[in-house]
């Protein structure tokens, strides 16, 4: 047997090879340092006091009790924020610490630093906050009839958004395509609902802030985008950006939940105030308030088709609950709208989307980002249509499949690769396992370890779904990624790139590209920090492989050219890569102008076999087969890993995951009551990688992280519908829905 010494690097491959993760060994030995593992001499522990109300006025805060607790070094409120008092990804609408009002359950109100976390907790408990509870807005349908949560009407306006004067509108969007009144031979309607999903990354929010002794600060944190963190942190600290250095600490999963700030400003404030390093680690309960979630949605859809199954018109109204602050809701709104019709050629459409402010937990980025919600509705509609037309659901999808050269409802012509028909065919051709005989051991049946059936009440169903989404940033966002390559005299190379390794494997991608371009194995990756290289953009939107590949490729090639020109020696070159430009949609019609709104797309098809105990409403997904459009697989093993993991997250939303609230308060903020899939819940997943190089992308790559999550919720619920004959229009599907209790 081969033996690998801990700490040594296994050989890395070049582009297209399945290679071992560069961080694989330290992650299996426990040596890999995550943000929550950081420690430094003289370190204090930070703790956050959070609002117990979803909506309240803050009349006064008395810190005296807290300051007298032994071991406490600082207790800070909004008045201690030296710079800008608010921050945010798109709009600076979120207070660093509550000023005069709290708008969601768990909103930070004060922060404490102490010698031991227990002292910090006891001190926080002794802070007296005088709240005047206000009636929370919790029903998104009523938000526009309520008092505005953000009183300044100009605070959330952008040039390319449709103006909507109603209170609590975050963004409204409309696509008018062809003739929305066009009639078909057959019409199907439905109303769909999705609960709010949590990213539930396993490594809770954490980080360490270290004052540099010269007024600046170093923040080591688990994040998805170092430079945008700095852009938000520095102004709040009242510091120029050069004095704030953000360093990537080991990230225990992200899935969108680390796009917004968590501990960054708080830990930095405490560190600068105490002149001591300060570590902050959220516990699981706090983590549910520590990041934004997937938008809960209500969707009303109407699909019209000809008798032979061609889509004539799609109408959809989408309502997204953005919660208390904007976060990335506006972009989620755009995605939900853009992908509402699914990957189908639709000649006429009217899509109307609104996201609103409420006092529910804030929502923002999560894997799939708006496309998950509409895929669930659109694919249920396609199945209804297939049933009404008595056409095989796979055939119906093939008949309407979008492809290169077709036009999206936004008027954007697809010039890049989008092999929808091929993923459908290849997925449909995957051979599912034969039904297993009954009775059988309970562990292989719905209810699993609960021992509830040996076969009684169990029915089998097959589901099929197709989904797609954009790759990288859209709507005119200046999407770029920097990389810096240093070639040493000894022939070795060092790559700097701020791309966040969140578990997805981008570090390997960077190394594979550099090794391929430089034709050497001797490449190392430098620590990831704002101090050494320009922005990479976020590890999100299925963009990081594409963007980092482009940047590293360009920097490598430029470095080789420069070395050649100089005739050898040390070379240090930085390059910024940008993808094709995009532009916003017309605010009135949702149509593109000269430039496209999205740079590229990726699609996936999925087939699901599920068993349902129709009497108890319990489920077991038996098998999943999927074919995904991946462009070019840089590291096929890692691509499969993304597909399997993304599928499991969609399974969670389909069957069990929902943040529950009562009057805006989260009632299941724990892994005891917010359930994510276990080893007994996720079936074997067979994946086919469909490789058609993306013409504009480096090496033909596409992003692969999101399509499986977009499609799996829809595909799994389709299988449950097939087994039960019920409509199941809401996820997560509850046992009550399956057995018909309401």
């Amino acid at each position: 047997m081969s033996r690998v010494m801990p700490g040594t690097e296994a050989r890395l491959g070049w582009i297209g090879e399945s290679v071992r993760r560069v961080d694989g060994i330290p992650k299996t030995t426990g040596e890999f340092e995550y943000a929550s593992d950081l420690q430094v001499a003289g370190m204090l522990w930070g703790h956050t006091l959070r609002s117990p109300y979803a909506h309240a006025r803050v009349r006064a805060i008395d810190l005296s009790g807290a300051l007298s607790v032994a071991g406490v070094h600082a207790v800070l409120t909004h008045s201690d924020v030296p710079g800008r008092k608010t921050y945010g990804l798109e709009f600076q609408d979120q207070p660093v610490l509550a000023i005069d009002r709290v708008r969601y359950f768990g909103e930070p109100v004060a922060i404490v630093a102490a010698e031991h976390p227990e002292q910090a907790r006891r001190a926080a408990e002794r802070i007296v906050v005088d709240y005047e509870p206000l009636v929370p807005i919790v029903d998104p349908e009523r938000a526009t009839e309520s008092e505005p949560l953000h009183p300044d009407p100009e605070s959330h306006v952008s040039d390319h958004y449709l103006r909507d004067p109603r209170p609590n509108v975050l963004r409204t969007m409309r696509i008018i395509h062809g003739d929305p009144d066009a009639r078909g031979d057959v019409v199907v309607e439905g109303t769909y609902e999705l609960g709010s999903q949590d990213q539930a990354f396993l490594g809770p929010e954490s980080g360490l802030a270290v004052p540099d002794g010269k007024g600046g600060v170093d923040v080591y944190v688990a994040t998805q985008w170092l430079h945008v963190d700095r852009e938000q942190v520095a102004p709040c600290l009242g510091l120029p950006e050069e004095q704030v250095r953000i360093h990537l600490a080991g990230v225990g999963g992200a899935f969108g939940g680390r796009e917004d700030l968590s501990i960054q400003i708080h830990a930095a404030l405490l560190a600068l105030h105490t002149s001591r390093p300060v570590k902050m680690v959220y516990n699981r309960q706090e983590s549910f308030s520590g990041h934004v979630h997937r938008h809960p949605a209500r969707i009303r859809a109407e699909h019209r088709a000809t008798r032979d199954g061609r889509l004539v018109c799609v109408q959809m109204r989408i309502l997204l609950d953005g919660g208390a602050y904007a976060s990335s809701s506006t972009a989620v709104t755009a995605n939900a709208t853009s992908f509402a019709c699914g990957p189908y050629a639709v000649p006429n459409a009217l899509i109307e989307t609104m996201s609103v402010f409420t006092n529910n937990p804030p929502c923002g980025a999560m894997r799939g980002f708006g496309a998950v919600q509409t895929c669930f509705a659109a694919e249920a509609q396609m199945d209804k249509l297939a049933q009404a037309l008595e056409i095989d659901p796979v055939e119906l999808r093939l008949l309407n499949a979008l492809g290169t050269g077709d036009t999206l409802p936004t008027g954007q012509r697809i010039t890049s690769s989008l092999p929808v028909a091929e993923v459908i065919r290849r997925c449909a051709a995957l051979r599912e396992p034969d039904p297993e005989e009954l009775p059988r051991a309970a562990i292989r049946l719905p209810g699993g370890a609960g021992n509830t059936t040996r076969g009684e009440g169990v029915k089998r169903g097959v589901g099929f779904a197709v989904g797609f989404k954009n790759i990288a940033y859209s709507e005119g966002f200046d999407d770029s990624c920097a990389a810096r390559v240093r070639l040493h005299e000894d022939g070795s190379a060092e790559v700097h790139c701020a791309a966040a390794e969140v578990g997805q494997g981008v570090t390997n991608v960077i190394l594979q590209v550099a090794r391929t371009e430089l034709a050497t194995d001797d490449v190392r990756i430098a620590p990831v920090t704002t101090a050494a290289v320009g922005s990479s953009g976020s590890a999100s939107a299925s963009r990081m492989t594409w963007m980092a590949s482009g940047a590293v490729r360009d920097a490598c090639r430029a470095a080789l050219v420069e070395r050649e020109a100089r005739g050898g020696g040390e070379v240090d070159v930085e390059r910024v890569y940008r993808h094709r430009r995009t532009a916003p949609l017309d605010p009135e019609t949702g149509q593109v102008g000269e430039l496209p709104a999205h740079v590229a797309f990726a699609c996936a098809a999925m087939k699901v076999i599920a068993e349902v105990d129709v009497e108890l409403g319990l489920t077991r997904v038996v098998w999943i087969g999927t074919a995904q459009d991946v462009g070019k697989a840089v590291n096929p093993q890692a691509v499969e890993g993304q597909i399997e993991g993304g599928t499991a997250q969609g399974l969670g939303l389909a069957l069990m995951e929902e943040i529950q609230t009562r009057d805006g308060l989260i009632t299941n903020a724990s892994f005891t009551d917010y359930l994510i899939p276990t080893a007994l819940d996720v079936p074997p997943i067979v994946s086919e990688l469909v490789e058609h190089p993306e013409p504009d992308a480096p090496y033909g790559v596409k992003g692969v992280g999101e399509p499986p999550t977009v499609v799996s919720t829809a595909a799994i619920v389709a299988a449950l519908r097939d087994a039960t004959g019920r409509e199941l229009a809401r996820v997560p599907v509850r046992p009550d829905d399956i057995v018909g209790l309401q």
Partner: protein
Amino acid sequence: MDVLTPRSLDEALRLRAAHPDALPIQGGTDLMVDLNFDRRRPEALLNLNEVAELKGWSRENGVVRLGAGLTYTDAMSAKLAALLPAFSEASRTVGSPQIRNRGTIGGNLGTASPAGDALPPLLISECEVELQSVRGERRLALESFLIGPKRNALAPDELILAVRVRGGLGTQTFMKVGPRNAMVIAVVSLALGVDRERGVLSAAFGSAAPVATLVTAALDDVDSFPEQVAAAASPIDDVRGTGAYRRHALRVLVARALERCLTR
């Protein structure tokens, strides 16, 4: 906070009498969550891990005596499974291997949660709880020991020593409903036994009333038993499930469990 760690039962009882505020801790699977999340800060903890007298199990005249320190993993042993099938099956549904290696039957009784997985199978096995203090020993039927949600009849100076159950009471099974296929707190659970010798049907359910509840009937009542058990429940709506579903599921579970036990 203090941690008291007695090395014998005598010492444990003396410490318990001297420190009635000290919270007994055995496997820690419930209590540690409260400590980790700052929900409880007791004056002291009475660590029972080192008390050998609480461990293991024995059998005498058809009565099985399960030490309070018996873990769920212990309970899954083949020997105990043969004597107390429902209890053994229930133990396999508790949490994960990690939880079953630490969680104890004494802890389940001490916490007295309406969702306690060990309680329904013990209830259908004529269970008595052995309690001891420096004042002496007493035995209580499990039904009398469980007095409310997360409340039991333990006196401030008493410790749970063991439970006594009757082994070999006909055929039995246990079922537990949860929203995923492993690692769940019961949305509703059921232990059911068919004792042909004495002509008795017994069912006990969890998570469908303020306490785990026993319902018995004559063997002839097979047809109406699912309805009888469901009628005895008073389930509520909470984050884990609805009352209506719990009652519905209970009916289904009883019918299936009867079928399972009667055809065995």
